[in-house]
């Protein structure tokens, strides 16, 4: 083995790696495209791209960030890849030398989870929904494999499991502020965890709130509409959505989301009742929403498929 790496390095040295898209991008290159915004005192959020995962964007598509408390740092969302998580960790180090004590795993989707590996060396408390473990068991390896196909080998990051599982709700005290967590029923996914910063009043509903980018349904349509009502009852007026601007007014943002999901539900039910098959329904349901969301054409048809197979058994 000893002579081999050198020879390979020499060989690769003769190639222009930057022209190979799957090898081109890394944390440093993610760096230049992003900035963190201080959305509340000591609360920083990076806006994700309205794109799908690609080698160029290192899956940096979700809103991620952190809160600096008296006793340490809490990471609100980890990012979509090892590189994305490493970028966030470096940004934290620029602003504070307090230890990273807590890392939130808001749900199972790769654009929120795969940055977690960047924080393993901090040995933080990884907090997640009680159903997150089994969701990661079922999907983690599968996601990782697909993500590596897109980003390149070794670039996805390993699957990280929660060390603290939240069944109903819990609180974390950072010394000068308390974060209140709620484990939701099946909604966007079967393992959505929301967080309320009681100091700033800012709600972090993660992907239970999409803004600008078309919502993606991977749990239960009826369940999501139910959990939206619950989010309204938390008393927050501003929120950090999983995708969209770094902060939004909560009520109108939930209003837009409800309108999309309700349209999806009502028109899918109508299609089922009229005997319109699933393939035809994907082309007709919720078209009135098309101009209101980015990536509509990429996700709406799939949302209809998920909604149809839930609602056809009603």
């Amino acid at each position, binding site marked *: 083995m000893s002579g081999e790496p050198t020879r390979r390095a020499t060989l690769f040295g003769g190639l222009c790696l930057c022209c190979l898209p799957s090898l081109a991008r890394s944390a440093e290159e993610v760096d230049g495209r992003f900035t963190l915004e201080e959305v509340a005192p000591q609360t920083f959020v990076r806006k994700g791209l309205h794109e799908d995962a690609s080698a160029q*964007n290192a899956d940096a598509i979700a809103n991620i960030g952190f809160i600096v408390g008296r006793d340490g740092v809490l990471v609100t969302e980890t990012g979509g890849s090892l590189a994305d998580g490493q970028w966030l960790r470096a940004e934290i180090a620029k602003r504070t030398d307090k230890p990273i004590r807590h890392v939130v795993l808001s749900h199972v989707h790769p654009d929120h989870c795969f940055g977690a590996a960047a924080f393993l060396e901090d040995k933080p408390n990884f907090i997640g929904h009680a159903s997150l473990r089994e969701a990661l068991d079922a999907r983690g390896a599968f996601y990782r494999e697909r*993500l590596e196909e897109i980003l390149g080998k070794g670039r996805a990051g390993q699957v990280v499991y929660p060390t603290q599982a939240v069944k109903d709700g819990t609180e974390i005290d950072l010394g000068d502020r308390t974060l209140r967590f709620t484990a939701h029923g099946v909604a966007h996914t*079967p393992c959505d965890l929301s967080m309320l910063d009681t100091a700033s009043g800012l709600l972090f509903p993660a992907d239970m709130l999409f803004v600008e980018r078309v919502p993606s349904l991977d749990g239960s349509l009826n369940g999501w509409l139910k959990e939206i009502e619950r989010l309204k009852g938390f008393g927050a007026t501003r929120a950090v959505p999983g995708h969209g601007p770094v902060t939004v007014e909560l009520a109108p943002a939930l209003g837009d989301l409800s309108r999309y999901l309700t349209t999806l539900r009502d028109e899918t039910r109508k299609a089922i009742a009229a005997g319109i098959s699933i393939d035809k329904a994907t082309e007709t349901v919720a078209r009135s929403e098309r101009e209101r969301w980015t990536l509509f054409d990429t996700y709406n048809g799939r949302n209809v498929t998920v909604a149809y197979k839930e609602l056809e*058994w009603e």
Partner: protein
Amino acid sequence: MRTIAAFAIGLALSAGPVLAAGAGDSDAEREARWGEIKQSVFKDRAVEKTDTLVSIDAPARALDAALVPITLTMPQKDRVKGVYLFIDDNPSPYAAHFEFGPAADPSEVKLRVRVNNYTNVHAVVETKDGKLHEAVKFVKASGGCSAPMGMSDEEAMRGMGEMRLKFGGDVKPGQPVEATLMVRHPNFSGMQMNQITRDYTPARYVQKLSVAYGDTPVFTLDGDISLATNPVINFALLPEGRGPIKVTASDNQGGRWEHSFDAPAVSN
């Protein structure tokens, strides 16, 4: 550089990583694979290409690789004895075989399948004179057979064997009636990881589905692991029979379920 659509948020892997297995196969390789499949199923029987006896409608790029809707249209319905569906690059390419009875109108059937790779999908019609005719459609999808169900095996098996039968439109005497048959069954492909034991959940799939109008057969369907979870079949039946519609389903692990549904009421 094309980005990978529909991946990162949901399980929408179907839109297809560029590097998906099977994506780069040459036409010659695909042809050779189809030749092997034909040989193993039809032995030395000739299979003619057809543009008229059967056509396949499927999304060129699947929205959900674990639930790809397929429509088979067979306009010369009186000549049709049965139809086979193959997904060439699935681990088990033989996906379904319908054999139609006197109470069927085989001009259109719909079903939902899993697609594991970029693949050719073949339909082979067997006409009543015993001849075989093939049509093909290329589908881009990836990971449909191994895609996790997103729930525990126990949850996936809840209500197994439950069925619904719905009829569409006005029922006119002597006219075919559109019907949708829904069967609750996980149809485990054998490639899905059990989240508790971390072993693969053994394949458990609907092997046979029979529909009869009274005593008159509508169709029998031989299924395999490529049928999507909770199989749904759209078909048309002729109001030839008498009595209820009887549906029998059985799977490869000895499960057997029977349901009887009221025949559609005729409106004059």
